[in-house]
């Protein structure tokens, strides 16, 4: 049972990281109908910038802050130079262009920082482990991730449900053209949503840096999982992103941790590890297929049917 508790906490942690990435993405899809494959790259940049700035300043929080500013600038630059010209284009054009962006940035990162994974030390105050009941030790830093993830979720919830800006966002998610017809400066709304989403993704990457490996292409799998989260949760819905992310995080983690043992029942250890790795990665997609089969619009769709 102690193993289960640890895995549940890990699942929660992964889920919250996924939520941070997925939240920005789902809003961008829902409100702007803009498909941004390069969102995973923002997660990656967050990690790389954090690694760099923390390395320079030797201080976690300052490094993190600088990284967030860097991510914002980076995101706004991208928006200005490239994305702005794609909003009115077809999904096909958006997909291809952002695909090109991923290629460029993954390679670019390799050129600047090298292909080897970067190490980011866990900040001093958060080192060590906490003793939970039953003699289980759980790293403090992972609790910090869970905590900051929940905090961000709360902040997002407050903004979206309780503020005027949030109301515009929610309205935009169900019908952006209507919003524009009502005189709302949709362009500015887009920029705000985009900037915020980028920051969330970068924040997730930065926070994840000490515990995951910072390497080129790290954002790709995260992006695809974020897609799964959004599809399960429902496009344009923060609530859906939250539910979907936790579901995905928990199931993926649990599937991974138990699949090796499960396979050991049938085959030898090396084979078990090899098979389990692939099989457990597949699991989450099977879940997605199941959810979609029953609910093509996801669990909490933001757009009502016409």
């Amino acid at each position, binding site marked *: 049972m102690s193993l289960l508790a640890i895995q549940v906490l890990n699942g929660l942690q992964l889920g919250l990281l996924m939520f941070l990435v997925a939240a920005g993405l789902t809003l961008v*899809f829902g409100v702007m*109908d803009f*498909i941004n494959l390069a969102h995973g790259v923002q997660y990656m940049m967050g990690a790389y910038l954090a690694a760099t700035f923390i390395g320079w300043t030797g201080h976690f929080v300052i490094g993190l802050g600088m990284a967030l500013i860097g991510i914002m600038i980076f995101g706004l630059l991208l928006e200005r130079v*490239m994305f702005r*010209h*794609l909003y*009115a*284009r*077809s*999904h*096909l*054009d958006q*997909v*291809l*262009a952002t*695909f*090109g*962006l*991923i*290629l*460029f*940035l*993954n*390679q*670019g990162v*390799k*050129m600047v920082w090298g292909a080897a994974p970067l190490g980011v030390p866990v900040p001093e105050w958060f080192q060590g482990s906490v003793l939970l009941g039953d003699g289980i030790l759980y790293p403090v830093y992972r609790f910090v991730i869970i905590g900051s993830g929940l905090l961000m979720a709360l902040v997002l919830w407050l903004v979206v449900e309780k503020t005027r800006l949030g109301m515009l966002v929610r309205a935009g998610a169900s019908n952006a053209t209507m919003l524009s017809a009502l005189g709302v400066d949709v362009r500015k709304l887009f920029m705000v949503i985009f900037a915020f989403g980028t920051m969330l993704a970068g924040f997730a990457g930065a926070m994840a840096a000490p515990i995951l490996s910072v390497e080129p292409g790290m954002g*790709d799998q995260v992006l*695809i999982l974020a*897609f*799964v989260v*959004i*599809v399960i949760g429902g*496009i344009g819905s923060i609530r859906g992103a939250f539910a979907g992310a936790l579901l995905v995080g928990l199931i993926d983690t649990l599937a991974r941790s138990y699949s090796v043992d499960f396979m050991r029942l049938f*085959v030898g250890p*090396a*084979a078990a590890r*090899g*098979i*389990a*790795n*692939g*099989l457990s*990665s*597949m699991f989450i*997609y*099977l879940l*997605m*297929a199941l959810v*979609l*089969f029953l609910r*093509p*619009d*996801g669990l909490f769709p933001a757009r009502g049917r016409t």
Partner: protein
Amino acid sequence: MSSPLIFSTKRSSFWPVVVLCLGLALVPVVAVLTKQGHWVSLTTQMMILALAALSLDLILGIGGLLSFGHAAFIGLGAYTTGILIQEGKGDLLIALPMSLVVSGLFAFVTGIVALRTRGVVFIMITLAFGQMAYFAAQALYAYGGDDGLTLDGRSTVFGLKLLSNKIVFYYLTFACLAGCLLLLQRLSRARFGRVLLGARDNAVRMETLGYDVFRVRLMAYVLSGMIAGLAGFLLANHTEFVSPAYAAWQRSGDLIFMVIIGGVGSLWGAVGGALTYLLLEEGLSGLTEHWKVIFGPLIILFVLLTHGGIEGVVARLRDVMAGGRHD
């Protein structure tokens, strides 16, 4: 929000296809005469990619369905072939149909789920299913797992090792490509193709006319998957190697690039797209190992500056020369 797609109802696409096929048929002859044997191998590779891009153009160009997981079908076809070869049952008469069946089945099952969604969600789901196939390949520990598997040889034909001759293999590939080109050209101009096109432009309209759009799309999706599976069969034989990388999502992106560059919906443009991609890859990687850092922005610039790919440019040139109006 859609960019103008150029669908030609004229028969004008006929001649480019004929010229193309003639050209391709003559490549081995020219290669042998000029002692450039490697051209045969390179062109074979291009034709295999073109076949895959062609299959995507059916659902993307004509159907308007942006599948970002198409490489999965190639991977499935390749692995089916590879596994059969390793198990000694790799004869063309077994491996080819089996590749079609496996990829077709995957297309059917995933299509049922994916085709009930539209727009952005469809793109994401196909991407996810593509990943699923990738991980399934990785899970095949007995057949190389992540590292991939070198095959014992190519498929036999009626028990004979005909395909180890690269010219014979070239013409097999050529036959597959030409055959599928012809098939899809007819299909796109027939009733089926028109319904698919109508559904691309206006699915609701089609339903109110009495068409079962879901069924038609599913049929196209399965056919498309099967042709890509055929490409997988050929790929496994050509390289005598299978790897999960064949099903990687980046490969799906490359296919989309090829389709767009060749001109969405033009079918024969897929060949041009495959050729362009390979030339770019060859040329750019000669400059630097980090060739993707140039390729990426090229793609971006291409999208930002053009509409409709090569076929679009050609069509526009035709209009200008005819002194007529655009579109």
